[in-house]
């Protein structure tokens, strides 16, 4: 392929795509501006942008992919530095766009199929590429974001119109409401005027405010013309295809579908029946808005890299193996769980592992942590590492964060779970006891949130923090004054942090379990009693918790669900939910329970 590179006057473009080599490819009476990054000997990843965008929309993703692949981007006809067809009407049909794609693919990767990635209209076009026969053998894989196949969409609508159950009708209305701009774009001339006038000027600010796209070198100066020309994408295709969708639009290559859950323009329901069109479909979801190439570049690059590598080598061992419930959401993501050598933390690490996450297992019990990491690998974790760290030790936590960032990446989900028990009346509890419990249960959480939360915020690509509080956080009791205080603090800390980080796409959850069958019963200190009495109470508690037998796995499931749904406070176990309700509606009853003699 390397000889193909130099043939048509290669120049360097001084755009947002630093170090890219530009060449121009003539096809069908127009000229496309094509940029290349990375080693041309590597598998080719071809990125197709959407509307109203230019290839620079990929400027945060392309460099990440260029470390491993030959990355190729081009401006769609009439956008950026590519020329527009004359006349515009009829110049934007999916057939012509397919011609463009083939011209680029043949020029940059003549003898190997390319891996296609499309966003928005880039994805809509790419669906055409991967479902028409003439491209067969030219595409090795396709990663689609926020752009459905017009044919699939057409069938989706038809099905809901011809057999409108209430649910289907609702889905239809929901999507119809999200498609307002499509109708607007069908009006003649007005959109062009708007884009070349006030809308074009305001657009960057709108993106920043509504779509949370970081300010900077994007969108580029060509925006008003890109947007005006691009209106023809809609006018030339949408009406005809939605009315007469092709019935043979089956994908002839594996497809990875990445769905942002906060997309203002596309309903997630659009993809419900996609399996019938795509024999090899991998689903991914991420909590983000429409412009993921701008807002979540790290995540996209990681998923694209994993998918392309697996499909390029055709190695089944490299295939995505995770089969857990939330594999679409956590596959490949970096999750750090503290206190993961035992109990709830370990079960949580396993649940994330089963969903294909990469897991950092942190505990002061090195042996137990290693065991968790070992088992996590056996059940589908992308990778798993054990780190022996005391969460109460600030310096050690700082060091851990540095190491994790350097070696594994920025944490996507942080679970501050390490905690210790302490029972005994307030007057019997020494200040030493207090210090111990606060050091781990409160300071451990503070260190975790502060150190890893800062990294998350600085990266600016979202994330989630889960803190394990307890039902004791809102259920007073005369036997657990210190423990309950520490957990109440964790609960409030979580609520405050949630408010603070909401604007940055970082969710914060406090989970509040009731009685869960873990080893916490036998490791909890009992203040003010003899060692024998302590031992007796511990085994009594252990037996009680054993009979209650609420498994930590269920808490883990609740934690994953809470992250997916971005819940604020999650009581787990019926008694935890019960006392939460009492704390709101019948606090006096709760206070009465607080006086009950312990075991």
């Amino acid at each position, binding site marked *: 392929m390397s000889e193909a590179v130099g043939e048509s006057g290669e120049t360097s473009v001084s755009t947002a795509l630093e170090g890219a080599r530009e060449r121009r490819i003539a096809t069908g009476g127009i000229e496309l501006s094509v940029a290349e990054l990375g080693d041309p000997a590597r598998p080719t990843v071809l990125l197709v942008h959407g509307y109203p965008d230019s290839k620079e929309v990929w400027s945060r993703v392309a460099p990440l992919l260029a470390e491993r692949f030959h990355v190729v981007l081009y401006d769609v006809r009439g956008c950026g530095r590519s020329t527009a067809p004359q006349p515009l009407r009829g110049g934007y049909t999916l057939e012509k766009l397919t011609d463009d794609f083939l011209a680029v693919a043949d020029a940059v990767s003549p003898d190997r199929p390319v891996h296609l990635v499309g966003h928005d209209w880039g994805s809509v076009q790419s669906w055409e590429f991967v479902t028409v026969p003439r491209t067969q053998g030219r595409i090795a894989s396709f990663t689609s974001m926020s752009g459905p196949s017009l044919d699939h969409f057409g069938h989706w609508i038809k099905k809901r119109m011809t057999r409108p159950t209430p649910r289907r009708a609702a889905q239809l209305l929901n999507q119809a409401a999200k498609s307002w701009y499509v109708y607007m774009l069908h009006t003649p001339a007005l959109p062009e005027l708007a884009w070349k006038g006030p809308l074009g000027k305001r657009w960057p600010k709108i993106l920043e405010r509504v779509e949370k796209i970081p300010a900077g070198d994007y969108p580029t100066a060509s925006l008003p013309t890109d947007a005006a020309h691009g209106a023809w994408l809609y006018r030339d295709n949408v009406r005809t295809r939605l009315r007469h969708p092709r019935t043979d639009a089956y994908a002839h290559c594996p497809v990875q579908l990445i769905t942002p859950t906060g997309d203002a323009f596309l309903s997630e329901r659009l993809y419900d029946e996609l399996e019938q069109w795509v024999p090899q479909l991998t689903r991914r979801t991420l909590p983000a808005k429409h412009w993921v190439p701008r807002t979540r570049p790290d995540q996209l690059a990681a998923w694209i890299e994993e998918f392309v590598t697996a499909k390029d080598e055709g190695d089944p061992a490299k295939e995505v193996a995770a089969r857990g419930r939330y594999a679409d959401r956590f596959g490949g993501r970096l999750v750090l769980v503290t206190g993961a050598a*035992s109990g709830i933390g*370990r079960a949580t690490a*396993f649940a994330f592992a*089963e969903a294909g996450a990469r897991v950092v297992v942190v505990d002061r019990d090195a042996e*137990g942590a290693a*065991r*968790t990491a070992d*088992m996590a690998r*056996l*059940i589908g974790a992308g990778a798993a590492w054990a780190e022996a760290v005391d969460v109460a030790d600030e310096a050690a936590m700082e060091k851990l964060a540095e190491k994790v960032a350097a070696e594994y990446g920025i944490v996507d989900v942080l679970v501050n779970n390490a905690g210790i028990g302490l029972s005994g009346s307030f007057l019997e509890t020494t200040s030493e006891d207090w210090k111990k419990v606060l050091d781990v249960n409160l300071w451990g959480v503070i260190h975790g949130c502060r150190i890893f939360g800062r990294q998350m915020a600085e990266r600016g690509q979202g994330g989630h923090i889960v803190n394990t509080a307890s039902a004791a956080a809102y259920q007073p009791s005369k036997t657990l004054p210190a423990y309950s205080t520490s957990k109440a603090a964790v609960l409030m800390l979580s609520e405050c942090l949630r408010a603070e980080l909401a604007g940055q796409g970082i969710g914060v959850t406090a989970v509040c379990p009731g009685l869960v069958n873990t*080893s916490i019963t036998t490791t909890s200190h009992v203040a003010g009693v003899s060692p024998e009495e302590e031992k007796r109470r511990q*085994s009594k508690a*252990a*037996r009680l918790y*054993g009979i209650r*037998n609420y*498994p930590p*796995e269920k808490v883990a499931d609740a934690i994953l669900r809470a992250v997916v749904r971005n819940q604020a406070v999650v009581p787990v176990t019926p008694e935890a939910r019960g006392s939460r309700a009492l704390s709101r509606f019948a606090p006096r009853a709760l206070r009465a329970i607080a006086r009950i003699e312990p075991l």
Partner: protein
Amino acid sequence: MTTAATASTAATRSRRDFSATSADLRGFREVQRLAYACAEAVAGQLKPGVTEREAARMQRRWLRERGVTDWFHLPFAWFGDRTAFVNFRIPLQFFPTDRALEPGMPFILDMAPVYQGYTADIGYSGCLGLSPLHDRLLADLEAHRELLLREVRERRPLREIYEDVERLMVRQGYANRHRAYPFGVIAHKVDRVRQRRWSPTLFGFGTQSLKGLASDALHGHREGWSPLWSPYRFSDHPPQPGLWAVEPHLGFRGVGAKFEEILVVTDSRDPEESAFWLDDDLPHVRRWQEEKAA
């Protein structure tokens, strides 16, 4: 199988005994080997599509053909996440279903034949195809076999041993799945059974054996012990001499594995003689030895 039984080294060792003579031990050993041979034979015939019911029937037929007419309990077969008793609420769920075996699925065969008046109760865990996870569970059972023997020799109360096994399972990252058995037992006593011309079963359990168990329970109740080795107070006593079918059962996220075999407990003062596994030449034990040799 029977020729192999007589060659066992353990058989020739003299044991000071509670009531079982060495001839008795030989009888128990023989039926235990017969049962494990059955498990291996049936496991070898399992392939995708075979159902639990069919696997149970295969065990029954295999043993009947070799002279088994009575049962402590009829053969069980569990496939897939049923090996870990996922969502088991009532005992009826233990009975074989129409669940079909699929590639990569774990399975457990569990049978308790009575042969010439001697009872065996065994459990055999396998997996259709390669599974590193299942291998790990099987390997991790070894520590439980060692722990059980060690603590029985120390004459620790059964309830405490139960808790130690559970703790070890939790440390290993597993759930204790024998808790799902009736009374949560990790073991129960087995005994000789009088041979009758007609040996009916009740809910899959042989009436003769149930009678034996009931009379033991009555007996034990008066003396402060129980033929069921459970996590409850009635097991708060040192190991009672006799033959115990011990069945630690690990579960991990929809995968279960167990072994079950007879532990002989005597009233000897010599620790080595006070408790020993009836037979060390069993598939799971051989597997551990081979792994170590490899």
